[in-house]
């Protein structure tokens, strides 16, 4: 049969000794064996099933044609059995058509199939209609030819089918020039369908499709695997991660990010402005009640690449924040909880700052903190008090150093009690203490704190069952009236303290004492 040539093409199981040298063969079998196996596993059973169905139907049609021929039925239309046969043949053709259409949905194939099927139907029907079944006129043949040649030119598949069909018609014309037999038409139609079905195009197209699907799948799998790995890595990372784009909007974040800042998962959304996160954190009080100092705040709210900062949270944690540029704009920000390290650092530093005996800060630390107080513009004014114990030497001499230590500790405690919580207390050494009182605008404001200290310190202190009494002389320097530098204020307060030693009140101001003559009022 004419369709046989097509059927002899290698089937997709294609175990040919050598891959075909021409390029199209590449599409025919996959060089990659695993891919080929996958393709066959995916398509071969279905393909085989379909081939079987088409072969079956085509054979049935041929059989039908032969039957009609043998029973002398020349024309389908004139008897009931002829009509029935025609109907059966039509249905079979339709099924073949649909079957052939299924392997691919490429437009080229559809048109080819359509053309071939139409040709088959025309070849079969037209003779009967136009010539009353007697014979197929050459005019009709020419018309069918023209139709067939016109449509499929651009489509190799359709061309193949058409050629197969033409060959069959030619043979028929040669074999039986007296008239076109209906059975021949049927045979030809089946052969055309076969030609289409087995065409290289169909096979190649299905392979292409498979390949495309396969690649998409492979890529998807690859991506999924990567994503899964990344997510797992992010989830297990100690660092928290936040990615924002060039408009400072959230791109992605790690679960740890939510943990570090105690954020609700529902709060985070892709596209959320970064500023709304910082706003939320301040709202939650994590960034400090009075807000952060401004430069830190700026650096947090408008981060720049390459920036690094240590973010102190109000719950006592410290977060190390690093930002790196993100390819294509924006930032990759990592957050590391460095609380432990920071704590030990701070502890270490604090210990170095503390006076071992009394637990208040030492001279160097006091000066450092005083400087930072002085540089705080929100302070209305600061009073620096220099306190020197009276009669302390006597205690030391009469009761021993251990008693002296008890007295110093007691005095420290009383200073704490007399002053406010945010007042700074330090020990300069020996029996000299120092204090800094923020928010003192005038001398009037400092009177009561100073008097409180005098009263508190003068109360008897019990040492080993004995009561000892020490006094204190206080020199007071005010910032800004007496100076704006820490050392300067300390010096002024020191000078005032000497004036206070000979003043009945027990305290003296730096500025007035500088104007006054040395005071004749001795301390009672």
């Amino acid at each position, binding site marked *: 049969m004419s369709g046989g040539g097509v059927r002899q093409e290698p089937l997709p199981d294609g175990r040919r000794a050598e891959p075909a040298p021409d390029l199209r063969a590449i599409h025919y079998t996959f060089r990659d064996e695993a891919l080929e196996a996958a393709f066959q596993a995916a398509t071969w059973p279905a393909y085989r099933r379909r081939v079987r169905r088409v072969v079956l139907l085509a054979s049935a049609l041929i059989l039908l044609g032969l039957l009609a021929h043998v029973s002398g039925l020349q024309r389908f239309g004139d008897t009931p059995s002829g009509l029935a046969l025609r109907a059966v043949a039509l249905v079979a053709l339709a099924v073949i058509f649909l079957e052939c259409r299924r392997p691919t949905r490429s437009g080229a194939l559809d048109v080819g199939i359509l053309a071939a099927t139409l040709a088959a139907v025309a070849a079969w029907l037209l003779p009967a209609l136009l010539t009353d079944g007697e014979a197929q006129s050459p005019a009709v043949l020419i018309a069918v030819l023209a139709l067939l040649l016109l449509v499929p030119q651009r489509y190799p598949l359709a061309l193949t089918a058409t050629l197969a069909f033409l060959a069959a018609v030619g043979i028929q014309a040669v074999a039986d020039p007296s008239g076109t037999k209906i059975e021949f038409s049927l045979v030809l139609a089946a052969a055309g369908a076969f030609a289409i079905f087995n065409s290289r195009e169909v096979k190649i197209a299905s392979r292409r499709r498979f390949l495309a699907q396969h690649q998409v799948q492979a890529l998807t799998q690859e991506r999924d695997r990567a994503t899964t790995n990344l997510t797992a890595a992010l989830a297990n990372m100690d660092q928290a991660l936040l990615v924002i784009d060039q408009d400072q909007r959230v791109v992605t974040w790690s679960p740890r990010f939510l943990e570090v800042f105690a954020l609700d998962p529902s709060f985070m959304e892709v596209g959320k402005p970064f500023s709304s996160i910082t706003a939320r954190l301040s709202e939650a009080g994590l960034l400090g009640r009075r807000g952060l100092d401004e430069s830190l705040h700026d650096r947090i709210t408008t981060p720049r690449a390459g920036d690094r900062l240590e973010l102190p949270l109000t719950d006592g944690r410290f977060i190390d924040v690093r930002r790196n540029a993100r390819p294509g704009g924006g930032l990759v920000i990592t957050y590391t909880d460095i609380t432990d390290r920071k704590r030990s650092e701070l502890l270490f530093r604090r210990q170095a700052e503390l006076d071992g005996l009394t637990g208040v800060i030492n001279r160097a630390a006091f000066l450092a903190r005083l400087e930072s107080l002085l540089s705080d513009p929100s302070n209305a004014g600061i009073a620096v008090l220099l306190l020197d114990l009276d009669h302390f030497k006597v205690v030391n001499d009469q009761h021993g150093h251990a008693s002296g230590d008890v007295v110093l500790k007691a005095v420290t405690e009383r200073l704490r009690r007399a002053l406010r919580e945010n007042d700074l207390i330090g020990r300069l050494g020996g029996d000299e203490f120092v204090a800094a009182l923020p928010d003192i605008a*005038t*001398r*009037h404001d400092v*009177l*009561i704190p100073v*008097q*409180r200290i*005098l*009263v*508190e310190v003068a*109360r008897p202190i019990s040492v080993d069952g004995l009561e000892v009494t020490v006094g204190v002389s206080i020199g007071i320097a005010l910032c800004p009236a007496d100076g704006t530098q820490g050392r300067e204020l300390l010096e002024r307060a020191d000078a005032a303290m000497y004036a206070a030693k000979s003043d*009945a*009140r027990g305290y003296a101001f730096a500025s007035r004492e500088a104007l006054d003559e040395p005071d004749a*009022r001795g301390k009672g």
Partner: protein
Amino acid sequence: MQHQFPHAMLPVALHDERARQDFVRSYKVDVLTRLGPGNREVFDRRAKPSYQRKTGQPPRSRREIATAMQGDAFWQMWSSLNRSGQEMMWEALTEPAFRERPRLVAQAQRLRRKRKSFGSLQISGDPVPRYIAAVDIHNQPGGYGLVLGQDDVYAGALYDLSAYHYSVGGLGPLGSDPGDSTVAFLREHHRRFAPRRILDLGASIGASTLPFADAFPKARIDAIDVSEGMMRYADARAKSLGKTIHFSQQNAERTNLSSGSFDLIVSHLFFHETSAAAVRNVMKECHRLLAPGGLMIHSDVPESNQFHPDPYDQWWRDWTTHFNAEPFRSTLRDTSLSKVAVAAGFAPRNVRELKIPSAAAVGVYKKTHGYGAEWHLVVATK
């Protein structure tokens, strides 16, 4: 000007301290009487026209006057001088008071031991109300609630000195003029009235309480105040002067005294330093404590807006609210105490407000404060 009476509890100033006090007093009088009127000129000639130019109309309320004046250089300078005077005064008084503190504490203890028969003293140790703890009223260092140690009398000692210096002696050598004036009023208008139980509210150091002891020797006199420093000092002071008063530290808004047990309840210079809510409560408490037919008299500075319709005067009196830590003063001037008394339960026809002349009417006081040496009384009978 008479000297302050040197009773045994008065801190004694040293020579230098006295010089400083004298200076500050003169300074304050000068700033008030010589420079103060300049503000009126500044207002009329400068601030008012400029305000009118800007807004199209002259300032009509005290708030608008405040807006008109706030940027004026003279006013700002004057205001700082006045404030500095106040701070200097306190410093000058603090010095002798603090230096004398140990002696005064011991003195008070001694008087309590030696003069047991002169009245009594009860200290509850309760903290002062928040409206007192939160401010150092008229910049008194530490405020009324200050306690500097055991048996402390410091707040009272400071107050005693300040009442004299602040008023430039205008309250008399014993600071008793408000009480003297009330007694004089009673003598004149309630001649037959012979109270057997008298209560003085917000008595502070008892300066105004003592005249009642002299005027009604048969009556039992109670005096209360929230400040323990005041009460301890008041007790010692009264004892040193040989007067019998029963002092107890209590909040006048809710005392532990029994209902209907007083024939006369008085207060002096009390309401202008008391929150509006507390004033309402005190009135109610007075109504509770008074016996039927009893008399209630609250005496204070005559600065209520009803006496001063000129918005300039009203604004002028706001200075102390804004710059001298007297947060309740402006509000009180807007308040009708008669209405408060009626709301507290007194029958409207039994309530009246009037001004009475100061008993002492010392010239300087009259001049500096411009109050015309008068007191503003709210009088009510139950």
